[in-house]
């Protein structure tokens, strides 16, 4: 990144939930900067807090959750000072838009496609119905709906899954948001449609210059779309850096484990690597490194003290004691060493993850 204009900056965010009379800490002191126009991918296993963390940007936590600590600076304001829904409504959709994984259910089944686009334009930009319709049809055109004007009054059930996700993207981008959060946007789509949707997001990003946050399990998507990657585990970001940093030179043992368990890099006939053990219970206070109990390379200190972030390069940071100068030198597993080569193969033309 040559110019680093920070659009959004989260600091020490702590999110807690009330679950059956107990308090669960879903996000533990996460800090993250989002840069203008970049694409950040947040990866991690289920329950690592990827979605919860991004929900704090738009105040969309479930009703039993709350932000316990921290600040999220956006356009010179701490978003967490928004107390009323009305304040959040000015951010949601207008400045920070979110799209969810299932396009089949993201649209109201009994409202016309058109009205679902225009309502957001009318709400945030104060346009009249006619103006909003023009914007909506233009937006539908841009996301690749043929005969947009004719299809304006159709209902979601008349659209295919991929088309619906295009409409969801059109709605999300109708008000030219600064940030687009894509919460597993392609999980529910089949592979060919996935590629089309990803390309669409990429193209629109080039055109409008918004920042994209990708939440995904799919490291293929990451390799293709992202400029930077943040790896989350147990409610924390444990490593972040550029795509090259993460794929070429991962440092955290969890990142190694995560990358090793990619089905796409498994060798046919060999058993696929899986991470032993289970993620930590977020109900209890976590001492030391959250990954330590599952980490074959864990050291004594991993169970006692939480590691700080160590800088590996100006763009690459990891939160593991292995980077401490006193730690023994541990080589990453063999799969990781060849991973970069394999990813290059897969994302270049003809590869499984290739997106134009």
């Amino acid at each position, binding site marked *: 990144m040559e110019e680093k204009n920070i659009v959004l900056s989260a600091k020490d965010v702590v999110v807690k939930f009330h679950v059956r009379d107990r308090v669960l800490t879903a996000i533990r002191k996460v800090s993250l900067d989002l840069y203008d126009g970049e694409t950040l991918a947040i990866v991690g296993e289920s329950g690592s807090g990827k979605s919860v963390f991004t929900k704090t940007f738009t105040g*969309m936590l479930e009703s039993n959750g709350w932000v316990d600590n921290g600040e999220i600076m956006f356009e010179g304001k701490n978003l967490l000072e928004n107390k009323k829904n009305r304040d959040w409504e000015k951010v949601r959709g207008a400045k920070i*838009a979110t799209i969810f994984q299932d396009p089949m259910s993201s*649209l109201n*089944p009994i409202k016309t496609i058109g009205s679902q686009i225009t*309502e*957001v334009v009318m*709400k945030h930009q104060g346009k009249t119905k006619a103006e909003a319709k023009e914007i909506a049809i233009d937006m539908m055109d841009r996301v690749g709906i043929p005969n947009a004007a004719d299809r304006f009054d159709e209902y979601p059930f008349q659209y295919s899954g991929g088309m619906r996700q295009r409409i969801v993207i059109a709605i999300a981008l109708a008000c030219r948001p600064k940030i687009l959060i894509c919460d597993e946007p392609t999980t529910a789509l089949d592979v060919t449609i996935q590629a089309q949707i990803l390309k669409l997001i990429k193209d629109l990003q080039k055109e409008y210059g918004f920042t994209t946050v990708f939440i995904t399990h799919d490291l293929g998507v990451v390799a293709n779309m992202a400029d930077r990657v943040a790896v989350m585990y147990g409610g924390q970001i444990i490593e972040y850096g550029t795509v090259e940093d993460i794929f070429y030179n991962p440092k955290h043992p969890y990142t190694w484990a995560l990358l090793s368990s990619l089905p796409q890099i498994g060798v046919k006939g060999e058993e696929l690597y899986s991470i032993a053990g289970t993620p930590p219970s977020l109900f209890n206070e976590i001492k030391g490194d959250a990954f330590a109990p599952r980490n074959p390379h864990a050291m004594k200190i991993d169970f006692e003290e939480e590691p700080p972030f160590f800088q590996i390069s100006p763009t690459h940071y990891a939160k593991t004691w292995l980077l401490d100068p006193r730690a023994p030198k541990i080589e990453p597993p063999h799969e990781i060493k060849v991973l970069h080569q394999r990813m290059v193969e897969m994302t270049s033309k003809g590869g499984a993850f290739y997106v134009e």
Partner: protein
Amino acid sequence: MKRYVLERIIRSLFSIFCVVTIAMFLVYSQIDRNNVFKEDQAVLKLKGQPDAYLNYRYSVWETLGYLDYMTQRDACTLEYDVNSKEFTSCLEIGSPEAAALGEQYKAKGYSVEPTPESGALWFTRDYTLVERIVRFYSGLINIDNPYAVQDANNPDLERKIYFGNDLAGKPALKCSGCEHKYLIYFNSDFPFIHQNIVTFDLGTSYPAYKNQAVTDVMSLRQGSAVKETVTFETGLTLDTSILDHTCTYKEVLDQLDSNKFVDNYANCLTNMAEDSMMSVSIKMGLMAVAIGYGLGIPVGMLMARRKGKLADKLGQAYIVIMISIPSLAYISFFRYLGTQYMGLPGKYPELGGADWRSWVLPVISLALPQIAGLMMWTRRYMVDQSSSDYVKFARAKGLSESEIFSRHILKNAIIPIAQGIPGSIIGCINGAIITESLYAVSGMGKLLPNSIKGFNNSMVIALTFFFTFLSVFSLLLGDLLVTVIDPRISLATSKKGGRK
């Protein structure tokens, strides 16, 4: 769409047919036919006269559609010209003509026997189930026409349809030669324009409402007669309770009739003070339905929006109470409150239907459980919808909670509720048995249970047919209503099979 509706109607008619057939089988074949006299006092008086006893019972069974019954005279009248010598001879007991008739009918499957006293022959044959069904449906719809009346004593009866005025001077479409004098007429009762062209014959009631048409029992006004000053076409002015619109053809006029009427349409019904059973039930039911939907849906919406808060909890408590306490108990309770503290009448007839206070307690009693039901379902559907993905996305779009509720959730939640609206409106006709009996309202509610208890067989069949008809078609209307609201549902059937 048209094709689908047509198919649905045919299927609906078929299901009605099945229900009525089963009911007929049960009522006519499985229940001892002597039971019909259980509630009849007249039959007891005839016990000492075997012939009259036999004649009475078989006539009643014939009216109720059990069998075909003929006396010797009936059979002779059918066979011979009334003025012929053979006819006179046929009437004699033991005559060769009568014996021949006996043989003839025996061959047709009739049982022919001499009566215990006089020895005159009587003929009877049970209808089969199929015959009963055919008779029920073939007589069901009557279409009045100028050739409907065939009166041998009145060969010069004019046959025409013409415009004229009724006795009150309002315009009407009248007829000579039809069964009814007035085919289309206007009055102040809803729906203001009425017709006698198509009438339904659902059978004759017995032993309750003896010999009245079932349709009349349901739809005629009740109570004491109401008199009005009327000037007849003969110029006679009288205080009378005659309803001129109901006049039908009468073959033999007496002097009183001739004073009033210029023609043979002298069989008129009397105007009564109280609404008919059907009309009372409909009015009461509609008011309750209006209150039920008017309160139940908004309160249910409120509960959904304030889920888990005080308003929701209070509403839930109300729903649980209404569902768990037997209706007899809470209706009695509200009746007690109303009569003790608000001075409302505890029985409908105390003040009669003309006084609004008579309606308050029954309507509230009917509305309370409906409100609870609608609150429950509205809340439930809205809560269901509010956890759906499109609501999450609508929130991410920056819509406010009230915008999400009114623009997105409400319509989705209303769809399943709308389906039941025609049913609850039309269902009012069926009446409400507990409320009506507790407040002594003379509505439709008690009609079916009383008919079953009183072995009023034709009434049971008629009501089975009528209520089945109403419920089957209100379902159809509900489905049609949903297609209007829900764009996803189209009733088009494509020839390839499957829905478009």
